[in-house]
């Protein structure tokens, strides 16, 4: 007699779908959501035994309901408070018009996703779920398909000309049981430029997708910080498609959080495009932080650069899965990847899987991954000059993270995030 092995994936997918309903929308949105639902049903939600989830258990991200997460009561100044930006506020995954600036900024049109989705015809049709669907190969990303099908809110940004101020997506977490599904679209016309800021924490559980189209000669600078709530869980996907000579830079700072999975899927489709993705993450205890990056070089002369640093303490876990895929014909590719963890004690761990897959012959690609403790010699040198042990550790920790922070192309933004890191170190979380 054989016992049928319960199909965990089918069960998890079924249970999750039962807790969701397809949002209202016009014809194009309805079609995009249905297509995503079909994709999701074909793939099923991720389970721990999937190769892509070997180091990170997706169970709490796929569960029908979020585990409760208390918002952190704290008097730290909000992120990017000193940066003059157009603010779009989401509270627990819902747009808060009263707290937001008017959606008017010259050089850019900004709409809420539900408004764009309600229209019969909208440019968003050419982007919504499109990059996400392309990003399902060669590795499945079912949480992103789920997001496309069921996202309830988000912003749809179309940059046509010079923009005077950054756009800041402010995400606040107030409800301990909030479960947010946000989907943002960012489309830059040829030659357009935008700085896009994001700050969290967004909700008790967040599933967010951002699809980014950077046309020829356009530039997007994306800088985000994911907030300090300890119990929050987050899965994010950024899908970016880069045109000829375009420039995409993305930096993520993560504090705390019981689970964070940030997937960054970048496709360099036009020649001479540049993509820099970087991140710094600090956490302790049950902190689990996963950067999963997939960069496809599909055209000649492109440059990609990944710099990820994590500081782990008290049993924290860091994960890095980074792949550079160079397609046949993508000659003169310059690919660089660095992932490093500073382990402040022996109970913390860093799991890294760097990968190169190259089908062109004239290519320069390198990767390096290290995990190490504080440099005792440097620590003693600092202390011998009178710097107390704790302060010396902080100096060395910041020094370790500096290489990642230097990837932020704007000094004021780098300064803001650097001050936040110093605060985290001073408070000890």
């Amino acid at each position, binding site marked *: 007699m054989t016992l049928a092995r319960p199909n965990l994936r089918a069960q998890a997918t079924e249970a999750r779908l039962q807790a969701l309903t397809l949002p209202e929308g016009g014809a194009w949105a309805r079609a995009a959501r249905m297509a995503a639902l079909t994709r999701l049903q074909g793939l099923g939600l991720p389970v721990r035994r999937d190769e892509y989830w070997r180091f990170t258990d997706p169970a709490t991200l796929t569960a029908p309901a979020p585990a409760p997460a208390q918002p952190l009561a704290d008097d730290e100044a909000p992120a990017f408070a000193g940066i003059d930006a157009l603010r779009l506020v989401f509270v627990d995954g819902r747009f808060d018009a009263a707290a937001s600036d008017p959606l008017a900024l010259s050089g850019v049109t900004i709409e809420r996703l539900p408004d764009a989705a309600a229209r019969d015809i909208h440019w968003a049709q050419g982007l919504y779920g499109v990059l996400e669907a392309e990003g399902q190969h060669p590795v499945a990303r079912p949480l992103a398909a789920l997001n496309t099908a069921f996202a309830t809110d988000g912003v749809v940004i179309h940059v046509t000309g010079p923009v005077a101020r950054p756009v800041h997506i402010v995400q606040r977490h107030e409800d301990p049981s909030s479960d947010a599904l946000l989907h943002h679209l960012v489309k830059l016309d040829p030659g357009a430029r935008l700085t896009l800021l994001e700050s969290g924490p967004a909700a008790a559980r967040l599933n967010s997708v951002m699809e980014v189209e950077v046309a020829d000669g356009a530039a997007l600078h994306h800088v985000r910080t994911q907030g300090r709530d300890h119990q929050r869980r987050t899965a994010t996907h950024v899908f970016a498609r880069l045109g000829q000579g375009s420039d995409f830079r993305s930096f993520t700072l993560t504090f705390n959080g019981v689970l964070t999975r940030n997937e960054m899927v970048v496709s360099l489709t036009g020649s001479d495009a540049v993509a820099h993705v970087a991140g710094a993450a600090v956490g302790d205890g049950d902190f689990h932080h996963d950067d999963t990056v997939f960069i496809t070089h599909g055209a000649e002369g492109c440059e990609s650069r990944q710099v990820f640093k994590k500081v782990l303490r008290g049993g924290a876990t860091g994960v890095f899965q980074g792949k550079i895929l160079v397609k046949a014909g993508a000659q003169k590719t310059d690919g660089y990847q660095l992932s490093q963890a500073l382990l402040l004690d022996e109970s913390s761990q860093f799991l890294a899987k760097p990968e190169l897959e190259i089908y062109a012959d004239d290519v320069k690609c390198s990767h390096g991954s290290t995990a190490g403790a504080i440099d005792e010699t440097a620590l003693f*040198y*600092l*202390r*011998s*000059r009178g*710097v107390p042990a704790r302060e010396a550790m902080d*100096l*060395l920790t910041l*020094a370790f993270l500096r*290489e990642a922070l230097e990837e932020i192309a704007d000094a004021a933004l780098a300064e803001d995030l650097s001050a936040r890191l110093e605060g985290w170190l001073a408070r000890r979380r």
Partner: protein
Amino acid sequence: MLEIRNLHVELEEGAKPILKGLDLSVGAGQVHAIMGPNGSGKSTLSYVLAGREGYAVTEGSAHLGDIDLLALEPEERAAAGLFLAFQYPVEIPGVGNMVFLRTALNAQRKARGEPEVSAADFLKLVRQKAQALRIDAEMLKRPVNVGFSGGEKKRNEILQMAVLEPRMCILDETDSGLDVDAMRLVSEGVNALRDQGRAFLVITHYQRLLDHIAPDVVHIMADGRIIKTGGPELALEVERNGYADLLAEAQ
């Protein structure tokens, strides 16, 4: 100023004895030199005084004035006025030289209950001291010792000493790797700090430094002990004849 009595030190790993009953007394206002063969324990002595981990003091004592050095953390020893110019200064990528120096100075002042030095005053102070040592502003902006030449690292040690104004300065082979001009600058830096309230312990292999910094007392160290103490003429004797006779005499 510095009183070391019967100091026995072994490596924590493997319990290998390095210092084997060392006695040394350096009075305020004095400059003492220590010479001795490679591996005799000179750097070990300086590290143990500065509080480096990895050494076990099994016997003896070391006091700075009436302060029991061995009971203090490294940063407390620094705040109490002890300074070690390292034989091999450490590179610290990502930490700027200026941030490092200012953090150190203010941490020491705070520990002593003195007010912190303002950013402007600090800049003035460092510029003035750096100029005397011919350390240019560009070097100060770089991370601590990163990409510095051997001689630049040694000059940077003396700059730190000049800014921190310790009362007990230990210089471990600060002269090694210095060109003739740098040797003169470093010596001038040391001589400028010489006064009644301060003492120096200068570890060196060469008479040349002692031409510039005239020591009051010269000690010969071998196998973890001071085997002979004398005046400046002792250094000249080592320069001429090496250690063989002195070692034989001590047997």
